[in-house]
């Protein structure tokens, strides 16, 4: 039964990735594109975690943590650049 639930969750997060890609393409402002990228990072982390459940091995944790760190830092760097014109002052 958990196989079907895993497949359902993976399909949901994959559809979410496609919707984020759409927002990334049509986004009217730059901040919308940044938000779409941030949501894509969240969805990719979810897919990595679900793949870790499916494969039954524990080494996906490092990939998820790396994605979380780089996603947060890149979003904040984009926003700082838009706000102040420089990433590190």
């Amino acid at each position, binding site marked *: *039964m*958990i196989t*079907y*639930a*895993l497949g*359902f*969750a*993976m*399909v*949901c*997060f994959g*559809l*979410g*990735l496609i*919707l*984020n890609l*759409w*927002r990334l393409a049509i986004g*009217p*402002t*730059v*901040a*919308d594109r*940044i*938000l*779409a990228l*941030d*949501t894509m990072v*969240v*969805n990719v*982390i*979810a897919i990595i*975690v*679900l793949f*870790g*459940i499916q494969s*039954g091995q*524990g080494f996906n*944790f490092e990939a*998820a*943590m790396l994605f*979380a*760190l780089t996603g*947060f830092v890149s*979003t*904040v760097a984009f*926003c*700082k650049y*838009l*706000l102040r014109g420089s990433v590190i002052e």
Partner: protein
Amino acid sequence: MTFGLEIALSILLVVGGLFGLTGSYGLIRLKDRMQRLHAPTKASTVGLGTALLASMFHGLMIGTGFSWQEVLVMFFLFITAPITANYLSKVHLQSRHYDGQTPTTGVSRDWATFDTAGEGPEPQLPSRDS
């Protein structure tokens, strides 16, 4: 025991998937750019949190024990999602400010991002004699 755990994990996974899909759909569906901030920062984070919970309890089912590593990812994400939302809303306010469409705050002061008034004098700390 194992069957109950399997049912609980399946429910967690289905609910997490629905929350994640709702967050991503809200990003498309909502009209205003400030409204668009709501869906991914809340619904997607909850969806990912339930997926991580399922991953933590999955170790009990396959016999490798409860895994604490996902707590780190969950902790980090739940801390960083509001910070990301705060920065993005600042960017929105700034872009509206340049278009001249900033809504009024309703009080005498401006939005905190554009508040250029000085900090005021330093507070006088009580000093001990002797």
